[in-house]
């Protein structure tokens, strides 16, 4: 047997296959390999998207045997003029902004601390990442107990530190506190994820750069702002992108915690969309809603990725 790896691979190809492939052009062989993926992509991504766009112009209801009429832009008009839709958009924006803000802040701080060499470093890392290993439904469920005014640990901790009576406030029952209750739980659960990405960024910075900065007598503060932050920034932005996309479609955790209430104060767009699509069965309307959300996320993500690429190029 030849020692050349290419020769070895060529010899490993069964003669029948080799004979059939021999007559094909490079382009044909390339399509042969790429084709299944393209077909799969068309079948599970592109076709449903086009079908959804098509349905969004109809009054189709998936649970009803009746004629489907094309109604033009009526679904879009109804959604965009519906005050409830805008309330759920506001709830989603509040949830997105504050979860990302706290997760980046705390996640980066934790990563910065964990990156220092100290005894028990690995153990602490493992303990910190535990929440993100749990199921969101389970997390939602047990936080409803933690938030209970009579028996919940959370209220008692607040009472311990502030003196406010534990049974005098309800995190998930109060209009002013409920939006924060979901922010707290999501932050508790997903800050470790941001921490891990930041940690990867911090560990990718060569020690030699800091050594050079030390030689130049740069202060720790200066090193942090001119070396650490800029070099970790692409990682941070990536974490923001991941968390932004994930939280835009947040559903399970919030449904378990508040069911979208009190009232509609924590009804995020994903919950609203699910109710339209699979409870009211307004399939056409829900398709238009999904298209609007898709365009929003796609547009924001595209702008963001461009910004991310610019930062990486610096």
């Amino acid at each position, binding site marked *: 047997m030849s020692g050349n790896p290419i020769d070895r691979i060529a010899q490993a190809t069964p003669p029948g296959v080799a004979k059939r492939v021999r007559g094909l052009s490079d382009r044909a062989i390339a399509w042969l390999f790429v084709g299944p993926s393209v077909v799969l992509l068309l079948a599970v991504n592109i076709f449903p998207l086009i079908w959804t766009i098509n349905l969004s112009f109809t*009054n189709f209801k*998936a*649970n*009803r*045997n009746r004629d489907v009429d094309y109604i033009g832009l009526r679904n879009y008009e109804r959604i965009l003029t519906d005050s*409830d839709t805008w309330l759920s958009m506001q709830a989603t924006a509040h949830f997105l902004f504050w979860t990302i803000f706290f997760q980046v802040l705390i996640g980066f701080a934790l990563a910065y601390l964990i990156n220092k060499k100290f005894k028990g470093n690995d153990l602490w890392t493992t303990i910190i990442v535990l929440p993100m290993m749990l199921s969101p439904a389970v997390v939602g469920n047990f936080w*409803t107990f933690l*938030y*209970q*005014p*009579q028996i*919940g640990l959370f209220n008692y901790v607040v009472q311990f530190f502030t003196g406010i009576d534990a*049974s*005098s*406030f*309800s995190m*998930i*029952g*109060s*209009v002013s506190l409920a939006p924060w209750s979901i922010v707290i739980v999501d932050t508790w659960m997903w800050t470790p994820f941001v921490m891990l990405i930041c940690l990867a960024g911090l560990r990718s910075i060569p020690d030699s750069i800091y050594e050079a900065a030390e030689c130049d007598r740069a202060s720790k503060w200066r090193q942090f702002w001119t070396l650490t932050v800029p070099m970790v920034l692409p990682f941070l932005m990536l974490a923001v992108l991941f968390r932004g996309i994930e939280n835009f479609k947040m559903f399970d955790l919030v*449904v378990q915690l*508040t*069911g*979208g*209430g*009190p*009232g*509609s*104060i924590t*009804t995020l767009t994903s919950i609203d969309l699910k*109710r339209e699509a*699979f*409870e*009211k*069965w*307004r399939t056409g309307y829900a398709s238009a809603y999904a298209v609007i959300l898709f365009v929003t996320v796609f547009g924001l993500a595209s702008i963001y990725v461009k910004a991310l690429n610019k930062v990486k190029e610096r």
Partner: protein
Amino acid sequence: MGVTGASAESLTLCWAAWDPANALVELSKDFEAKSGIDMEFEFVPWPNFADRMLNELNSNGKLCDLLIGDSQWIGGAAENGNYVKLNDFFAQEGISMDDFIPATVTGYAEWPKGTPNYWALPAYADVVGWTYRKDWFERPELMAEFKGKYGYDLGVPADLAQLKDIASFFQARDIDGKTVYGAAIYTERGSEGITMGVTNALYNYGFQYGNPENPYKELDGFVNSDGAIAGLEYYKELYDAGAPPGSSNWYMGENIDAYKSGQVAMQMNFAFIWPGVNADPNVGGDRTGYFANPKGPAGQYAQLGGQGISVVANTDNMDGALAYIKWFAQPEIQARWTDMGGASAMRSVVEDPGFPDAQPYNKAFLNSMAIVKDFWAEPSYASLLLPMQSRVHNYVIAGQGTAKEALDGLVADWVEVFEDEGLR
């Protein structure tokens, strides 16, 4: 067709996961023994029951041969061809709807309502009612304090106003060194909870689902009448004055837990929980009493619960499924059903002279079943339910807007639904 000799080898019965379902498993062993058909069961927890089963029906799934579905699904399931119409089968087998409590026939079996078109056999009679801590109500010091404060005796409330007084009286009260609260009421946001609760106040203050002569076209002035507004305001006052802190998203399970753990003096809940309460070591026996939803200024009504059993049109085991219905409709099986923890809607069972005193809660059950009203059962039931959940929760729990604004908004939402349905 007889019970024996049916051709199907197994049947799957779908229902909610709760105590009566376990009783039905036991009861069905008799059917298995007599028919040779194996019974399989698919029980789904209540919060997911509607989603799971309606998706199953809408997708023409083959999971269920028999379905004990909620009363409000009957319109959609009938019009979409998900259930088998049972009139011919009933006539052939001598099963008469006259043998069942009329309200359950209307609620669980008929579509369109008020017409003799049957899509189910009444299977489980249920209604919203109340349990109360009789042992607390009978404490002399509390009785004296209550009478001094309100001017009448502490006892089963004669009307909704008294119920609110009692809830307020017990709110944040220290009993045996423990802080207790007035009443656990339905407040759940995600599925149907707060609607199933608030209707018990709305009906009794004058709310109607539209002009009875023309319900789809005349909603204004009925859904948002002055009485309806007062009823909604009452429910909010009851929540603010008498519900435990943090009970902003409570339904059946949470209310049971609160009552059994001694947190509340009264509990709103469907009657299916009463056998479990009666048997509970902490609050059962003489410590608990039961009463029907009290009257209001416009009358006395209670929200209907319960279900009928239907044959799913998509079944491959039609003969077996019909055989099960025939078996289940027998008076002796219905009597055993009630004995085992079910709740028969058959008149021969509930009108038996021994029935009212057979259990401490049976009188309250009979009183409640005599005053039932149900939510819309139209094919667009879910589209009608969701805005009610949202509007009512926004006002009662979140405290946003006024009762009038909530009900005016509900009228607008329902008008839109009926316009979409081509009914206006």
